[in-house]
C-alpha cells in the first residue's frame, strides 16, 4: 500500500513540478525562492499524502501550500532584508529585458495576497470560488482584492480593456 502511494506521489510530483515552479516564480519573482517554495509544498503534501489523495484534489492542495508558503516567505524574510542606498541590480542598456519582465516586475508592487489573486485568477484561470478556496477567503474578498490589484497594476503597465472580469 505504501509503495503504491509513494509511486503515486512520484508520478504526481514529476508531472506537476514544472507548473508549481512557474507558479512559485510568478509569485516570488525569483527562481531560487520558487524552487524552495515548491519543494516545501510537495514535502508537505507527501507528509499528508494519504489524506491529500482522499481529499481528491492534490493539485489544489499543493497549489494552496505554494501560495501560503509564498505569503509566509514574505513574512519570514521581512526582518532579514535591508535597504541599500542604491538598487543592487540595474538594467543593462540596450536590452529589452525590462520590457519583457514588465508584468512580473509589476507584480512585486502588490502585496502577497493581491499578487496571489492576480496569479490565480488571471494566469491559472481559477474561478472566483476556486481562488477564494485557495486563499481561504470569501468570493467578495477575491473580487475586491482583484479590483485593487488591477488598479495598481494599471499604474505600472498597460492592461487590456475588460481584463477585470
Amino acid at each position, binding site marked *: 500500500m505504501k509503495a503504491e502511494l509513494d509511486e503515486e506521489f512520484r508520478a504526481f510530483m514529476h508531472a506537476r*513540478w514544472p507548473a508549481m515552479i512557474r507558479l512559485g516564480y510568478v509569485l516570488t519573482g525569483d527562481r531560487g525562492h520558487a524552487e524552495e517554495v515548491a519543494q*516545501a509544498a510537495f514535502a*508537505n503534501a507527501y507528509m499528508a499524502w494519504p489524506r491529500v489523495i482522499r481529499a481528491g484534489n492534490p493539485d489544489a492542495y499543493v497549489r494552496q501550500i505554494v501560495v501560503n508558503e509564498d505569503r509566509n516567505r514574505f513574512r519570514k524574510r521581512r*526582518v532579514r532584508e535591508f535597504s541599500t542606498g542604491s538598487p543592487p541590480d540595474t538594467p543593462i542598456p540596450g536590452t529589452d529585458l525590462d520590457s519583457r519582465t514588465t508584468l512580473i516586475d509589476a507584480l512585486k508592487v502588490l502585496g502577497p495576497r493581491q499578487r496571489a489573486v492576480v496569479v490565480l485568477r*488571471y*494566469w491559472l484561470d481559477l474561478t472566483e470560488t476556486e481562488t477564494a478556496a485557495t486563499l481561504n*477567503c470569501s468570493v467578495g474578498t477575491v473580487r475586491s482584492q482583484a479590483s485593487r490589484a488591477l488598479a495598481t497594476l494599471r499604474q505600472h503597465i498597460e492592461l*487590456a480593456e475588460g481584463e477585470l472580469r
Partner: protein
Amino acid sequence: VSLHEQFDRELGAISPPPPPAPVEETMRRGTWMRRRRHATAVACTAAVVAAAIWVPLAVHWKDSSAPETSHYTVTVQPPGPTAPVNEIAYGTVNGKAWRILMGKTSPNDASFDSCAEMLGPAFEPEPVTGPDTGCYPPRGATLANPVAFDPPAFAVGPDPQALGLAGEVAANVTHVTVTLTNGTLLTLQPVTVYGDRYVAFAAPTGAVVQVTAYSRRGEIARAFPFAPDGPDWFLDTGWLRPGQHELAPVTAVVGSGRYTGGTGLFQGSWSVVLQQGPWGVCETLTGEDGLCGPGQPGPRRAGAQVVYKNGRYEICEGLTPLDVTRVVLTLPGSGSVTVQLAGGADAKYWAFGYTKAFSWTAYNAADLVVGSGRTSQP
C-alpha cells in the same frame, strides 16, 4: 494582450526550463517532517541508541521584536452560549477582536479539518488558516506535557499584530494561565471541541513570558517560549514541574559543514546550533526544524541519529554523557577526526556530515571508552 497571454509570454521568455523534480529528496524531507512530528527518532547506530528523549518540534519563524511597549491590552473569553460548536476562545488584542476555532469550518475539504482557525481583525490583514506549514493538529497533551500547543500561527503581512495559539490540554488540567510582558495574566478555560479539550489565546507577538497549567491540586507545570529567532514558541517537552529549576541560557554550534548534492533549502553550508534555556535544550539544523528535549540532567548513554539525508549525503547528530571529553570519528580511508562537542545541561552534542559510513567512539577524561557506534552506509 490578456494578462494570461502576457504571463505566458513573459514566463516563456525569461524562464529556463525548471530543473528535474527532486522527488526522492522531497519525499525524504516529507518523511523527516512527519517523523519529527511523530517523535520517532531514527538511530543511525545499531550498537547504541540515544537514551535521551528527543521530541520533534517545529520551529517556525518568529517575529524577532518583542513589543516595544507594555501599553497593549489583551483579553480572552471562553465561547459564549451562541458561539459555534467548534469555537475555543475569543477576545481582543489592542481592542481588535479575534476568534479561534478548531477546523471543520473550512470551505475547502476534509483534509484541512485539523487546523486551528484564527479569525478576526486582530489577525488582519489576513486570517490564518489553511494547510501551511504551521497547520497541524494541536494534539499530544499528556500528564507530563499538560498542554500541546500547535505551532504558532501569525497574522500574515508586513506588520503582524497578533500571535494566535491553540493547544490540546491533558485530562487533569483545570485551567491554564499565560503571563505577558506587561504583567497581564490571562486565564484560559479548556473547551471541549469534537471530543478533545483545547485552550487558545492571542497576544501581540513577543508578549508571552510563561504558560502555566493547573489541576485541581495546584500547579502542574510551567513552560517558556523557545526563541531561536524571536520570542514566541512553546516547548512542549520543556514543561518544568514545581521546584524544577530553569536552565541557564547557552548557545553553541554543535557542528557545521556543506551540503553535497542538495537543492532548494538544502544548499551551501549547514550548521546545527544548540540553544538551551528555560525551554529546555534544542538543536536546530540551519533553516529547518529543531529537535528539542527537556534538558534535565540525568543518566545518558552515548548515541546518534540521522537528522538529514539526501542521496548519499547525511548529517548525523550525536549525544554523549556529560563526562565525555572527546568523540573520535574513524572515516574510511581518511583516518580519524575529533569532533567538537557542545555542552548542554543534560548532555554533550556533536554533528557531522558524511557520504560514507563511519564509526565513532566517545571517551571520558580517563580515556576510557564510554560509548561507540557505526553509521549505516548512506
